[in-house]
């Protein structure tokens, strides 16, 4: 059977890629999607650990994470839409008026 460490490695890679996405993309929506990827990697880890521990609580946690992600998406996309209305752009590099 598959050792949990394999899943850990996979989730670590996915998490890192998600983080990398946040760092290198300028499109607010894609940044947001990268965050979702990070959460997803965490979910994978949860489920794997739940399986290793033979407990369900990890799966329940994933359920909550998905729900939270949905909530975040609602607010996040609303924000992006509002800002796009104002500026006609979702390049976050253009939103750098507050600084110093």
């Amino acid at each position: 059977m598959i050792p949990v460490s394999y899943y850990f490695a996979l989730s670590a890679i996915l998490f890192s890629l998600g983080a990398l996405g946040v760092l290198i993309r300028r499109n607010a929506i894609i940044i947001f999607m990268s965050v979702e990827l990070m959460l997803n990697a965490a979910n994978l880890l949860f489920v794997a650990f739940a399986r290793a521990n033979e407990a369900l609580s990890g799966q329940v946690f994933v359920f909550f994470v998905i729900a939270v992600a949905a909530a975040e998406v609602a607010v996040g996309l609303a924000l992006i839409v509002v800002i796009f209305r104002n500026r006609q752009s979702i390049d976050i590099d253009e939103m750098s008026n507050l600084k110093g």
Partner: protein
Amino acid sequence: MNGELILFFVLAIVAISAALGMLFSRNAVYSALFLILNFATVAVFFLLLGAPFIAMAQVTVYAGAIMVLFLFVIMLLGAEQIQHQARRGWQRPLAMLLTLVLLAESAYLIFTRSDVLTVLQPAAADYGSPQSIGMLLFSEYLLPFEVTSILLLAAMVGAIVLVKEDKKSGGQK
């Protein structure tokens, strides 16, 4: 090397490729599609790990509803692409370097400490079934469940507050 392991590697390669695809697609639509692929692959992993309910939720809620919403917004805003401007040139290489460092750290961790971590054994029959999850949600996890509901409510209110046109600033598009 047994079949399950081969499956794992194949799926892992798909998931990672999809993630990379999302990362490096110029077009936001492709990114979203790659992400859906990734989510779907992860859903298969969930199945492999004995979590059918979560896999379902992953496909319907995540890959389905949420990603559709993403696609919808991308289309709505017409913001598939951003004009390429090479600003802040050090950000990208530095980010990649740091990511590599992080991966190296994880690798170090995995290869030096955890390579003997539990090998997963076949689970009990009703492990991860919707019933058992549901039981948990409404007993042990009642509080988080209720909090989640409030959270969703708050998010909804927030989204409405944000997007709702003000009467005063009605002149805006």
